[in-house]
Protein backbone atom coordinates (compact mmCIF):
# COMPACT_ATOMS: atom_id res chain seq x y z
CA UNK A 1 0.00 0.00 0.00
CA UNK A 2 2.79 2.42 0.93
CA UNK A 3 4.62 1.32 -2.19
CA UNK A 4 1.58 2.15 -4.30
CA UNK A 5 1.25 5.52 -2.58
CA UNK A 6 4.92 6.25 -3.24
CA UNK A 7 4.41 5.35 -6.90
CA UNK A 8 1.22 7.36 -7.34
CA UNK A 9 2.21 10.33 -5.17
CA UNK A 10 4.62 11.73 -7.70
CA UNK A 11 2.25 11.18 -10.61
CA UNK A 12 -0.52 13.00 -8.78
CA UNK A 13 1.85 15.73 -7.59
CA UNK A 14 2.82 16.55 -11.20
CA UNK A 15 -0.54 15.95 -12.83
CA UNK A 16 0.04 17.88 -16.05
CA UNK A 17 3.41 16.26 -16.69
CA UNK A 18 1.95 12.82 -15.96
CA UNK A 19 -1.01 13.48 -18.25
CA UNK A 20 1.23 14.64 -21.10
CA UNK A 21 3.35 11.53 -20.74
CA UNK A 22 0.27 9.33 -20.54
CA UNK A 23 -1.16 11.06 -23.63
CA UNK A 24 2.11 10.39 -25.50
CA UNK A 25 1.85 6.67 -24.80
CA UNK A 26 -1.88 6.66 -25.54
CA UNK A 27 -1.38 8.45 -28.85
CA UNK A 28 1.40 6.05 -29.86
CA UNK A 29 -0.64 3.00 -28.96
CA UNK A 30 -3.72 4.35 -30.75
CA UNK A 31 -1.63 5.11 -33.85
CA UNK A 32 -0.01 1.70 -33.78
CA UNK A 33 -3.32 -0.08 -33.32
CA UNK A 34 -4.99 1.91 -36.09
CA UNK A 35 -2.19 1.60 -38.62
CA UNK A 36 -1.70 -2.11 -38.06
CA UNK A 37 -5.40 -2.91 -38.03
CA UNK A 38 -6.08 -0.91 -41.22
CA UNK A 39 -3.12 -2.44 -43.04
CA UNK A 40 -3.93 -5.93 -41.83
CA UNK A 41 -7.49 -5.35 -42.97
CA UNK A 42 -6.23 -4.23 -46.39
CA UNK A 43 -3.98 -7.27 -46.65
CA UNK A 44 -6.86 -9.51 -45.60
CA UNK A 45 -9.03 -8.00 -48.31
CA UNK A 46 -6.40 -8.58 -50.94
CA UNK A 47 -6.00 -12.13 -49.70
CA UNK A 48 -9.75 -12.49 -49.99
CA UNK A 49 -9.65 -11.32 -53.61
CA UNK A 50 -7.10 -13.99 -54.44
CA UNK A 51 -8.62 -16.76 -52.42
CA UNK A 52 -12.19 -16.14 -53.58
CA UNK A 53 -13.66 -19.65 -53.65
CA UNK A 54 -10.24 -21.19 -54.24
CA UNK A 55 -7.61 -22.94 -52.22
CA UNK A 56 -4.53 -22.65 -54.40
CA UNK A 57 -3.14 -19.83 -56.52
CA UNK A 58 -0.97 -20.48 -59.56
CA UNK A 59 1.16 -17.62 -60.86
CA UNK A 60 4.48 -16.85 -62.53
CA UNK A 61 7.50 -17.91 -60.51
CA UNK A 62 9.80 -15.21 -59.07
CA UNK A 63 7.50 -12.35 -60.00
CA UNK A 64 7.70 -9.26 -57.77
CA UNK A 65 4.05 -8.31 -58.05
CA UNK A 66 1.02 -10.27 -59.20
CA UNK A 67 0.13 -7.46 -61.61
CA UNK A 68 3.29 -8.41 -63.56
CA UNK A 69 2.58 -12.14 -63.49
CA UNK A 70 1.85 -13.73 -66.84
CA UNK A 71 0.27 -17.19 -67.03
CA UNK A 72 -0.76 -18.67 -70.41
CA UNK A 73 -4.55 -18.72 -70.59
CA UNK A 74 -4.76 -22.29 -71.87
CA UNK A 75 -2.93 -23.49 -68.77
CA UNK A 76 -6.08 -22.83 -66.75
CA UNK A 77 -8.06 -25.05 -69.11
CA UNK A 78 -5.45 -27.81 -68.85
CA UNK A 79 -5.24 -27.62 -65.05
CA UNK A 80 -9.03 -27.70 -64.85
CA UNK A 81 -8.84 -31.16 -66.45
CA UNK A 82 -6.66 -32.63 -63.68
CA UNK A 83 -8.63 -35.12 -61.58
CA UNK A 84 -8.08 -33.45 -58.21
CA UNK A 85 -9.23 -30.02 -59.49
CA UNK A 86 -12.84 -28.91 -58.97
CA UNK A 87 -12.38 -25.77 -61.05
CA UNK A 88 -9.62 -23.43 -62.24
CA UNK A 89 -10.33 -19.83 -63.24
CA UNK A 90 -7.90 -17.43 -64.90
CA UNK A 91 -7.92 -13.87 -63.51
CA UNK A 92 -6.19 -10.91 -65.15
CA UNK A 93 -5.47 -7.94 -62.87
CA UNK A 94 -5.09 -4.46 -64.26
CA UNK A 95 -5.42 -0.82 -63.39
CA UNK A 96 -7.67 1.46 -65.39
CA UNK A 97 -8.34 5.13 -65.02
CA UNK A 98 -11.29 7.39 -65.50
CA UNK A 99 -11.73 11.16 -65.29
CA UNK A 100 -11.03 12.11 -61.68
CA UNK A 101 -10.25 8.50 -60.72
CA UNK A 102 -6.72 7.59 -61.76
CA UNK A 103 -6.65 4.16 -60.15
CA UNK A 104 -9.49 1.70 -60.55
CA UNK A 105 -8.75 -1.98 -60.09
CA UNK A 106 -9.88 -4.06 -63.02
CA UNK A 107 -10.58 -7.80 -62.90
CA UNK A 108 -10.57 -9.72 -66.17
CA UNK A 109 -12.59 -12.85 -65.35
CA UNK A 110 -14.68 -15.59 -66.90
CA UNK A 111 -18.44 -15.91 -66.26
CA UNK A 112 -17.69 -18.98 -64.12
CA UNK A 113 -15.74 -16.86 -61.61
CA UNK A 114 -17.52 -16.61 -58.25
CA UNK A 115 -17.17 -12.83 -58.37
CA UNK A 116 -19.85 -12.99 -61.04
CA UNK A 117 -21.59 -16.27 -60.33
CA UNK A 118 -21.89 -15.62 -56.59
CA UNK A 119 -22.42 -11.84 -56.64
CA UNK A 120 -25.43 -9.91 -55.38
CA UNK A 121 -26.71 -8.15 -58.45
CA UNK A 122 -28.04 -4.65 -57.85
CA UNK A 123 -28.57 -3.91 -61.52
CA UNK A 124 -28.53 -6.32 -64.45
CA UNK A 125 -27.87 -10.03 -64.07
CA UNK A 126 -25.27 -12.70 -64.53
CA UNK A 127 -26.53 -13.59 -67.98
CA UNK A 128 -25.61 -10.09 -69.20
CA UNK A 129 -21.92 -10.55 -68.33
CA UNK A 130 -19.65 -11.25 -71.31
CA UNK A 131 -22.54 -11.09 -73.75
CA UNK A 132 -20.93 -8.11 -75.43
CA UNK A 133 -17.16 -7.46 -75.59
CA UNK A 134 -17.55 -3.86 -74.39
CA UNK A 135 -19.82 -4.78 -71.49
CA UNK A 136 -18.41 -4.29 -67.98
CA UNK A 137 -19.86 -4.93 -64.54
CA UNK A 138 -19.19 -2.33 -61.86
CA UNK A 139 -18.83 -2.80 -58.15
CA UNK A 140 -21.40 -0.80 -56.17
CA UNK A 141 -18.95 1.87 -55.04
CA UNK A 142 -17.40 2.16 -58.51
CA UNK A 143 -20.90 2.74 -59.90
CA UNK A 144 -21.37 5.50 -57.32
CA UNK A 145 -18.14 7.38 -57.98
CA UNK A 146 -18.44 6.92 -61.74
CA UNK A 147 -22.10 7.99 -61.52
CA UNK A 148 -23.00 5.15 -63.85
CA UNK A 149 -25.85 2.65 -63.99
CA UNK A 150 -27.07 -0.21 -66.16
CA UNK A 151 -26.80 0.65 -69.88
CA UNK A 152 -24.70 3.80 -69.37
CA UNK A 153 -21.51 4.26 -71.35
CA UNK A 154 -18.31 5.03 -69.44
CA UNK A 155 -14.83 6.00 -70.51
CA UNK A 156 -12.05 3.83 -69.03
CA UNK A 157 -8.58 4.75 -70.23
CA UNK A 158 -8.52 4.82 -74.00
CA UNK A 159 -11.76 2.90 -74.53
CA UNK A 160 -15.47 3.28 -73.97
CA UNK A 161 -17.51 0.57 -72.27
CA UNK A 162 -21.17 -0.11 -71.60
CA UNK A 163 -22.31 -0.92 -68.06
CA UNK A 164 -23.79 -4.43 -68.13
CA UNK A 165 -24.57 -4.61 -64.43
CA UNK A 166 -23.77 -3.46 -60.90
CA UNK A 167 -22.86 -5.92 -58.16
CA UNK A 168 -22.42 -5.61 -54.42
CA UNK A 169 -19.49 -7.36 -52.78
CA UNK A 170 -18.24 -7.35 -49.22
CA UNK A 171 -14.72 -6.54 -50.33
CA UNK A 172 -13.72 -2.89 -50.65
CA UNK A 173 -11.29 -3.43 -53.51
CA UNK A 174 -13.82 -5.42 -55.52
CA UNK A 175 -16.64 -3.04 -54.63
CA UNK A 176 -14.63 -0.17 -56.06
CA UNK A 177 -13.51 -2.22 -59.09
CA UNK A 178 -14.53 -3.00 -62.64
CA UNK A 179 -15.17 -6.56 -63.88
CA UNK A 180 -14.42 -7.19 -67.54
CA UNK A 181 -14.78 -10.37 -69.56
CA UNK A 182 -11.34 -11.97 -69.66
CA UNK A 183 -10.99 -11.58 -73.43
CA UNK A 184 -11.89 -7.88 -73.25
CA UNK A 185 -9.39 -7.31 -70.46
CA UNK A 186 -6.67 -9.14 -72.40
CA UNK A 187 -7.35 -6.96 -75.39
CA UNK A 188 -7.56 -3.75 -73.33
CA UNK A 189 -4.31 -4.41 -71.47
CA UNK A 190 -2.65 -5.93 -74.57
CA UNK A 191 -2.07 -9.20 -72.79
CA UNK A 192 -3.68 -11.52 -75.27
CA UNK A 193 -3.69 -15.16 -74.28
CA UNK A 194 -2.52 -14.61 -70.71
CA UNK A 195 -3.88 -14.12 -67.24
CA UNK A 196 -2.21 -12.87 -64.02
CA UNK A 197 -3.12 -15.87 -61.88
CA UNK A 198 -5.17 -19.02 -61.94
CA UNK A 199 -7.34 -19.54 -58.86
CA UNK A 200 -7.80 -23.24 -58.29
CA UNK A 201 -10.31 -25.06 -56.12
CA UNK A 202 -9.37 -28.65 -55.32
CA UNK A 203 -11.89 -31.40 -54.76
CA UNK A 204 -9.96 -32.43 -51.66
CA UNK A 205 -7.70 -30.08 -49.71
CA UNK A 206 -5.36 -32.95 -48.90
CA UNK A 207 -4.41 -33.09 -52.57
CA UNK A 208 -2.77 -29.67 -52.35
CA UNK A 209 0.71 -31.10 -52.00
CA UNK A 210 0.29 -33.45 -54.98
CA UNK A 211 -1.18 -30.58 -57.00
CA UNK A 212 1.80 -28.33 -56.25
CA UNK A 213 4.22 -31.08 -57.28
CA UNK A 214 2.36 -31.52 -60.56
CA UNK A 215 2.56 -27.78 -61.28
CA UNK A 216 6.28 -27.83 -60.48
CA UNK A 217 6.86 -30.78 -62.77
CA UNK A 218 4.78 -29.65 -65.72
CA UNK A 219 5.14 -25.87 -65.56
CA UNK A 220 8.57 -24.97 -64.21
CA UNK A 221 7.95 -21.27 -64.89
CA UNK A 222 4.91 -21.29 -62.59
CA UNK A 223 4.45 -21.77 -58.90
CA UNK A 224 1.42 -23.01 -56.99
CA UNK A 225 0.84 -21.89 -53.42
CA UNK A 226 -1.95 -22.58 -50.99
CA UNK A 227 -3.73 -19.44 -49.79
CA UNK A 228 -2.09 -19.51 -46.37
CA UNK A 229 1.36 -20.11 -47.89
CA UNK A 230 0.81 -17.24 -50.28
CA UNK A 231 -0.17 -14.91 -47.45
CA UNK A 232 3.03 -15.67 -45.59
CA UNK A 233 5.42 -15.57 -48.53
CA UNK A 234 4.10 -12.87 -50.83
CA UNK A 235 6.62 -10.05 -50.53
CA UNK A 236 4.03 -7.26 -50.90
CA UNK A 237 2.11 -8.52 -47.88
CA UNK A 238 5.30 -8.88 -45.91
CA UNK A 239 6.35 -5.36 -46.81
CA UNK A 240 2.93 -3.99 -45.84
CA UNK A 241 2.92 -5.80 -42.51
CA UNK A 242 6.51 -4.85 -41.75
CA UNK A 243 5.69 -1.23 -42.60
CA UNK A 244 2.72 -1.28 -40.27
CA UNK A 245 4.77 -2.60 -37.38
CA UNK A 246 7.64 -0.24 -38.17
CA UNK A 247 5.36 2.82 -38.24
CA UNK A 248 3.63 1.67 -35.07
CA UNK A 249 6.96 0.86 -33.46
CA UNK A 250 8.30 4.34 -34.22
CA UNK A 251 5.21 5.81 -32.61
CA UNK A 252 5.73 3.66 -29.57
CA UNK A 253 9.41 4.58 -29.44
CA UNK A 254 8.41 8.24 -29.31
CA UNK A 255 5.97 7.41 -26.53
CA UNK A 256 8.76 5.57 -24.72
CA UNK A 257 11.04 8.59 -25.02
CA UNK A 258 8.24 10.66 -23.51
CA UNK A 259 8.05 8.25 -20.58
CA UNK A 260 11.84 8.35 -20.22
CA UNK A 261 11.77 12.15 -20.14
CA UNK A 262 9.01 12.13 -17.53
CA UNK A 263 10.84 9.61 -15.39
CA UNK A 264 14.13 11.51 -15.58
CA UNK A 265 12.31 14.67 -14.47
CA UNK A 266 10.56 12.66 -11.80
CA UNK A 267 13.78 11.28 -10.36
CA UNK A 268 15.54 14.66 -10.43
CA UNK A 269 12.67 16.42 -8.70
CA UNK A 270 12.28 13.81 -5.96
CA UNK A 271 15.92 13.14 -5.33
CA UNK A 272 15.53 14.25 -1.72
CA UNK A 273 12.66 11.82 -1.20
CA UNK A 274 14.74 9.02 -2.65
CA UNK A 275 17.47 9.90 -0.15
CA UNK A 276 14.91 9.85 2.69
CA UNK A 277 13.78 6.39 1.60
CA UNK A 278 17.40 5.22 1.50
CA UNK A 279 18.11 6.57 5.00
CA UNK A 280 15.01 4.74 6.21
CA UNK A 281 16.27 1.42 4.92
CA UNK A 282 15.00 1.19 1.35
CA UNK A 283 17.30 -1.02 -0.70
CA UNK A 284 18.44 -0.23 -4.25
CA UNK A 285 15.89 -2.73 -5.52
CA UNK A 286 13.07 -1.13 -3.55
CA UNK A 287 14.00 2.30 -4.93
CA UNK A 288 14.12 0.82 -8.43
CA UNK A 289 10.72 -0.78 -7.90
CA UNK A 290 9.21 2.62 -7.04
CA UNK A 291 10.64 4.20 -10.20
CA UNK A 292 9.70 1.29 -12.46
CA UNK A 293 6.28 1.16 -10.83
CA UNK A 294 5.76 4.81 -11.71
CA UNK A 295 6.70 4.27 -15.35
CA UNK A 296 4.63 1.09 -15.53
CA UNK A 297 1.61 2.99 -14.18
CA UNK A 298 2.03 5.66 -16.89
CA UNK A 299 2.56 3.03 -19.59
CA UNK A 300 -0.36 0.82 -18.63
CA UNK A 301 -2.79 3.73 -18.21
CA UNK A 302 -1.52 5.25 -21.48
CA UNK A 303 -1.76 1.93 -23.32
CA UNK A 304 -5.30 1.26 -22.08
CA UNK A 305 -6.36 4.78 -23.04
CA UNK A 306 -4.68 4.32 -26.42
CA UNK A 307 -6.46 1.03 -27.00
CA UNK A 308 -9.80 2.64 -26.19
CA UNK A 309 -9.09 5.64 -28.45
CA UNK A 310 -7.77 3.45 -31.27
CA UNK A 311 -10.74 1.08 -31.07
CA UNK A 312 -13.11 4.05 -31.06
CA UNK A 313 -11.37 5.59 -34.06
CA UNK A 314 -11.51 2.32 -36.00
CA UNK A 315 -15.17 1.92 -35.10
CA UNK A 316 -15.84 5.45 -36.38
CA UNK A 317 -14.03 4.67 -39.66
CA UNK A 318 -16.63 2.00 -40.30
CA UNK A 319 -19.22 4.71 -40.80
CA UNK A 320 -17.23 6.75 -43.32
CA UNK A 321 -18.98 5.97 -46.65
CA UNK A 322 -15.83 6.50 -48.74
CA UNK A 323 -14.05 3.80 -46.76
CA UNK A 324 -16.93 1.35 -46.69
CA UNK A 325 -15.54 -2.08 -47.44
CA UNK A 326 -11.91 -0.89 -47.32
CA UNK A 327 -11.56 -0.93 -43.57
CA UNK A 328 -11.88 -4.04 -41.48
CA UNK A 329 -12.08 -2.58 -37.97
CA UNK A 330 -12.07 -5.88 -36.10
CA UNK A 331 -9.19 -5.75 -33.61
CA UNK A 332 -7.54 -9.04 -32.83
CA UNK A 333 -6.93 -9.93 -29.20
CA UNK A 334 -3.40 -10.98 -30.06
CA UNK A 335 -2.69 -7.55 -31.57
CA UNK A 336 -4.12 -5.82 -28.49
CA UNK A 337 -1.97 -7.96 -26.21
CA UNK A 338 1.11 -7.34 -28.35
CA UNK A 339 0.56 -3.57 -28.36
CA UNK A 340 -0.03 -3.57 -24.58
CA UNK A 341 3.08 -5.62 -23.96
CA UNK A 342 5.16 -3.38 -26.25
CA UNK A 343 3.89 -0.25 -24.49
CA UNK A 344 4.77 -1.75 -21.12
CA UNK A 345 8.23 -2.84 -22.27
CA UNK A 346 8.87 0.58 -23.83
CA UNK A 347 7.75 2.32 -20.65
CA UNK A 348 9.95 0.16 -18.46
CA UNK A 349 12.89 0.59 -20.84
CA UNK A 350 12.30 4.34 -20.62
CA UNK A 351 12.64 4.14 -16.85
CA UNK A 352 15.87 2.17 -16.97
CA UNK A 353 18.29 5.09 -16.83
CA UNK A 354 16.25 7.10 -14.28
CA UNK A 355 15.95 4.00 -12.08
CA UNK A 356 19.68 3.31 -12.20
CA UNK A 357 20.32 6.99 -11.42
CA UNK A 358 17.90 6.83 -8.49
CA UNK A 359 19.50 3.66 -7.16
CA UNK A 360 22.89 5.36 -7.19
CA UNK A 361 21.74 8.41 -5.25
CA UNK A 362 23.99 8.99 -2.24
CA UNK A 363 21.69 9.98 0.63
CA UNK A 364 24.17 12.33 2.30
CA UNK A 365 24.71 14.37 -0.83
CA UNK A 366 21.05 14.26 -1.84
CA UNK A 367 19.89 15.48 1.56
CA UNK A 368 22.16 18.51 1.23
CA UNK A 369 20.48 19.23 -2.10
CA UNK A 370 17.60 21.67 -1.74
Amino acid at each position, binding site marked *: *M*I*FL*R*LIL*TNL*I*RHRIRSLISLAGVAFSVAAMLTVITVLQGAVAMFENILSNDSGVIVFERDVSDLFFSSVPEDTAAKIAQWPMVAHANPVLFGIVSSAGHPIITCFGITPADTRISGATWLQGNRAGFAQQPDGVVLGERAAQFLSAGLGDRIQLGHAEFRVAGVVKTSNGFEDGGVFMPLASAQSFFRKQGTSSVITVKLRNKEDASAFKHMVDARYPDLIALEDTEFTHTYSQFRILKATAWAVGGCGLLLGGLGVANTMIMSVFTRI*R*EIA*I*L*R*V*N*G*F*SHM*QIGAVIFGESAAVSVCGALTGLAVGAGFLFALKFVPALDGYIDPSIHLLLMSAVLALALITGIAGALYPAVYAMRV*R*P*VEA*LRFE
Partner: protein
Amino acid sequence: MSQAAKNRYDRRIVLRAADVWKSYDEGAVSVLKGAEIECIESTSVALCGPSGCGKSTLLHLFAGLDTPDRGTIWVNGAEVNRSRNLLHLLRHEVGFVFQLHNLIPDLTLTENCLIPAVAAGIDRRTAMIRLLELSERTGLSHRLDHRIQKLSGGERQRTALCRALMNRPRILLADEPTGSLDEQTSRSVFELLLELTATEGVTLLMATHDRGLAERCDNVVEMHDGKIREHAGIH
Protein backbone atom coordinates in the same frame (compact mmCIF):
# COMPACT_ATOMS: atom_id res chain seq x y z
CA MET B 1 32.36 8.55 40.46
CA SER B 2 28.76 7.93 41.44
CA GLN B 3 27.31 4.41 41.48
CA ALA B 4 25.01 5.32 38.58
CA ALA B 5 27.96 6.43 36.51
CA LYS B 6 29.89 3.30 37.46
CA ASN B 7 26.95 1.16 36.31
CA ARG B 8 27.01 2.94 32.99
CA TYR B 9 30.71 2.15 32.55
CA ASP B 10 29.87 -1.51 33.04
CA ARG B 11 27.75 -1.38 29.93
CA ARG B 12 29.16 -2.04 26.51
CA ILE B 13 30.29 0.54 24.01
CA VAL B 14 27.81 0.69 21.11
CA LEU B 15 29.30 3.56 19.10
CA ARG B 16 33.01 4.01 18.60
CA ALA B 17 35.12 6.07 16.23
CA ALA B 18 38.91 5.62 16.23
CA ASP B 19 41.23 8.08 14.45
CA VAL B 20 38.59 8.94 11.85
CA TRP B 21 39.52 11.26 9.00
CA LYS B 22 37.16 12.57 6.38
CA SER B 23 37.59 15.19 3.68
CA TYR B 24 35.55 16.38 0.72
CA ASP B 25 36.33 17.82 -2.72
CA GLU B 26 39.30 15.49 -3.17
CA GLY B 27 40.91 16.48 0.09
CA ALA B 28 40.43 20.22 -0.31
CA VAL B 29 38.03 20.41 2.63
CA SER B 30 39.09 18.39 5.67
CA VAL B 31 36.16 17.85 8.02
CA LEU B 32 37.30 15.17 10.44
CA LYS B 33 40.94 15.04 11.52
CA GLY B 34 41.48 12.01 13.68
CA ALA B 35 38.19 12.13 15.61
CA GLU B 36 37.80 9.65 18.47
CA ILE B 37 34.63 9.00 20.42
CA GLU B 38 32.92 6.23 22.36
CA CYS B 39 29.26 6.03 23.39
CA ILE B 40 28.01 3.60 26.01
CA GLU B 41 24.69 1.87 25.51
CA SER B 42 21.53 3.50 26.87
CA THR B 43 23.20 6.84 27.43
CA SER B 44 22.59 10.18 25.81
CA VAL B 45 25.56 12.03 24.35
CA ALA B 46 25.50 15.60 23.08
CA LEU B 47 27.98 16.46 20.35
CA CYS B 48 28.67 20.18 20.54
CA GLY B 49 30.80 22.50 18.49
CA PRO B 50 30.71 25.27 15.91
CA SER B 51 29.22 24.84 12.45
CA GLY B 52 31.46 22.89 10.11
CA CYS B 53 33.43 21.18 12.87
CA GLY B 54 32.31 17.73 11.62
CA LYS B 55 29.36 16.85 13.88
CA SER B 56 27.00 15.88 11.06
CA THR B 57 29.72 14.05 9.18
CA LEU B 58 30.46 11.93 12.24
CA LEU B 59 26.76 11.04 12.58
CA HIS B 60 26.59 10.13 8.87
CA LEU B 61 29.58 7.83 9.31
CA PHE B 62 27.92 6.06 12.26
CA ALA B 63 24.76 5.55 10.15
CA GLY B 64 26.78 4.08 7.29
CA LEU B 65 25.63 6.89 5.01
CA ASP B 66 29.23 7.83 4.26
CA THR B 67 32.63 6.20 4.60
CA PRO B 68 35.72 7.58 6.38
CA ASP B 69 38.92 8.25 4.44
CA ARG B 70 40.89 6.75 7.31
CA GLY B 71 40.17 5.28 10.70
CA THR B 72 37.50 2.92 11.92
CA ILE B 73 33.86 3.20 12.89
CA TRP B 74 32.17 0.57 15.04
CA VAL B 75 28.45 0.24 15.67
CA ASN B 76 27.23 -2.39 18.13
CA GLY B 77 30.72 -3.86 18.25
CA ALA B 78 31.00 -4.44 14.52
CA GLU B 79 33.00 -2.33 12.11
CA VAL B 80 31.01 -0.27 9.61
CA ASN B 81 32.66 -0.97 6.28
CA ARG B 82 31.78 -2.35 2.89
CA SER B 83 31.41 -5.90 4.16
CA ARG B 84 28.92 -4.79 6.80
CA ASN B 85 25.23 -5.19 5.94
CA LEU B 86 24.44 -1.48 5.77
CA LEU B 87 20.77 -2.13 5.04
CA HIS B 88 20.46 -4.06 8.29
CA LEU B 89 22.22 -1.21 10.07
CA LEU B 90 19.73 1.36 8.74
CA ARG B 91 16.67 -0.86 9.10
CA HIS B 92 17.21 -2.33 12.55
CA GLU B 93 20.18 -0.89 14.42
CA VAL B 94 20.17 2.87 13.88
CA GLY B 95 17.45 5.52 13.67
CA PHE B 96 18.18 8.96 12.26
CA VAL B 97 16.52 12.32 12.99
CA PHE B 98 17.52 15.34 10.90
CA GLN B 99 17.38 19.06 11.60
CA LEU B 100 14.77 19.38 8.87
CA HIS B 101 12.17 16.70 9.46
CA ASN B 102 12.77 15.11 6.01
CA LEU B 103 9.28 13.69 5.78
CA ILE B 104 7.49 13.10 2.47
CA PRO B 105 4.97 15.95 2.33
CA ASP B 106 2.27 14.26 0.23
CA LEU B 107 2.02 11.24 2.49
CA THR B 108 0.15 11.10 5.77
CA LEU B 109 1.80 10.88 9.16
CA THR B 110 1.00 7.14 9.26
CA GLU B 111 2.43 6.51 5.80
CA ASN B 112 5.62 8.40 6.60
CA CYS B 113 6.13 6.48 9.81
CA LEU B 114 5.51 3.13 8.14
CA ILE B 115 8.30 3.65 5.57
CA PRO B 116 11.03 2.01 7.72
CA ALA B 117 8.70 -0.90 8.48
CA VAL B 118 7.94 -1.38 4.78
CA ALA B 119 11.65 -1.23 3.97
CA ALA B 120 12.38 -3.88 6.59
CA GLY B 121 9.46 -6.09 5.54
CA ILE B 122 7.70 -5.83 8.90
CA ASP B 123 4.07 -6.85 8.63
CA ARG B 124 1.55 -4.03 8.65
CA ARG B 125 -0.25 -5.15 11.81
CA THR B 126 2.91 -5.22 13.90
CA ALA B 127 4.00 -1.89 12.43
CA MET B 128 0.63 -0.29 13.18
CA ILE B 129 0.73 -1.47 16.81
CA ARG B 130 4.16 0.11 17.18
CA LEU B 131 3.01 3.32 15.48
CA LEU B 132 -0.03 3.59 17.75
CA GLU B 133 2.23 3.17 20.77
CA LEU B 134 4.67 5.84 19.57
CA SER B 135 1.97 8.27 18.43
CA GLU B 136 0.30 7.92 21.84
CA ARG B 137 3.54 8.78 23.59
CA THR B 138 4.33 11.69 21.29
CA GLY B 139 0.82 13.11 21.37
CA LEU B 140 0.20 12.55 17.68
CA SER B 141 -2.54 9.94 17.82
CA HIS B 142 -5.15 12.44 16.64
CA ARG B 143 -2.99 13.35 13.61
CA LEU B 144 -2.37 9.90 12.14
CA ASP B 145 -4.34 10.48 8.94
CA HIS B 146 -3.15 14.03 8.44
CA ARG B 147 -0.79 14.95 5.66
CA ILE B 148 2.57 16.32 6.69
CA GLN B 149 1.71 19.67 5.09
CA LYS B 150 -1.07 20.05 7.68
CA LEU B 151 1.21 19.52 10.68
CA SER B 152 3.03 22.17 12.70
CA GLY B 153 6.84 22.28 12.90
CA GLY B 154 6.87 20.56 16.29
CA GLU B 155 4.46 17.88 15.12
CA ARG B 156 6.58 17.23 12.07
CA GLN B 157 9.69 16.77 14.17
CA ARG B 158 7.81 14.47 16.56
CA THR B 159 6.66 12.49 13.50
CA ALA B 160 10.29 12.22 12.39
CA LEU B 161 11.13 10.93 15.87
CA CYS B 162 8.36 8.30 15.63
CA ARG B 163 9.65 7.22 12.22
CA ALA B 164 13.21 6.93 13.50
CA LEU B 165 12.09 4.69 16.37
CA MET B 166 9.61 2.57 14.34
CA ASN B 167 11.83 -0.47 13.96
CA ARG B 168 13.03 -0.32 17.59
CA PRO B 169 16.66 0.64 16.86
CA ARG B 170 19.09 0.51 19.80
CA ILE B 171 20.81 3.69 18.65
CA LEU B 172 19.34 7.05 17.71
CA LEU B 173 21.45 9.58 15.83
CA ALA B 174 20.00 13.08 15.89
CA ASP B 175 21.46 15.90 13.82
CA GLU B 176 20.31 19.20 15.36
CA PRO B 177 16.83 17.72 15.92
CA THR B 178 15.46 20.93 17.37
CA GLY B 179 17.48 23.33 15.26
CA SER B 180 14.58 24.42 13.07
CA LEU B 181 12.09 24.92 15.92
CA ASP B 182 11.27 27.87 18.15
CA GLU B 183 12.57 27.76 21.70
CA GLN B 184 9.43 26.50 23.37
CA THR B 185 8.77 23.80 20.79
CA SER B 186 12.44 22.93 20.81
CA ARG B 187 12.32 22.26 24.56
CA SER B 188 9.23 20.07 24.34
CA VAL B 189 10.59 18.02 21.43
CA PHE B 190 13.89 17.58 23.26
CA GLU B 191 12.11 16.43 26.43
CA LEU B 192 10.26 13.90 24.36
CA LEU B 193 13.47 12.76 22.72
CA LEU B 194 15.13 12.19 26.08
CA GLU B 195 12.09 10.48 27.54
CA LEU B 196 11.62 8.12 24.61
CA THR B 197 15.28 7.14 24.38
CA ALA B 198 15.49 6.62 28.13
CA THR B 199 12.36 4.48 28.41
CA GLU B 200 13.29 2.40 25.37
CA GLY B 201 16.90 2.03 26.45
CA VAL B 202 18.13 3.67 23.26
CA THR B 203 21.59 5.21 22.96
CA LEU B 204 21.29 8.80 21.80
CA LEU B 205 24.07 10.66 20.00
CA MET B 206 22.86 14.16 19.25
CA ALA B 207 24.59 16.99 17.44
CA THR B 208 23.48 20.35 18.82
CA HIS B 209 24.41 24.00 19.17
CA ASP B 210 22.15 24.47 22.11
CA ARG B 211 24.24 24.40 25.30
CA GLY B 212 21.13 24.26 27.45
CA LEU B 213 19.92 21.09 25.76
CA ALA B 214 23.37 19.55 25.71
CA GLU B 215 23.68 19.92 29.46
CA ARG B 216 20.63 17.71 29.87
CA CYS B 217 22.42 14.76 28.25
CA ASP B 218 24.46 12.16 30.16
CA ASN B 219 27.61 13.17 28.36
CA VAL B 220 28.74 16.22 26.40
CA VAL B 221 31.46 15.95 23.78
CA GLU B 222 33.09 19.07 22.38
CA MET B 223 34.24 19.05 18.80
CA HIS B 224 36.53 21.56 17.23
CA ASP B 225 38.14 21.59 13.81
CA GLY B 226 37.43 17.94 13.12
CA LYS B 227 38.67 16.63 16.46
CA ILE B 228 37.07 15.72 19.76
CA ARG B 229 38.42 18.34 22.10
CA GLU B 230 37.02 17.25 25.41
CA HIS B 231 34.54 14.91 27.07
CA ALA B 232 32.49 16.40 29.82
CA GLY B 233 31.83 13.97 32.62
CA ILE B 234 28.87 11.70 32.83
CA HIS B 235 26.16 13.13 34.99
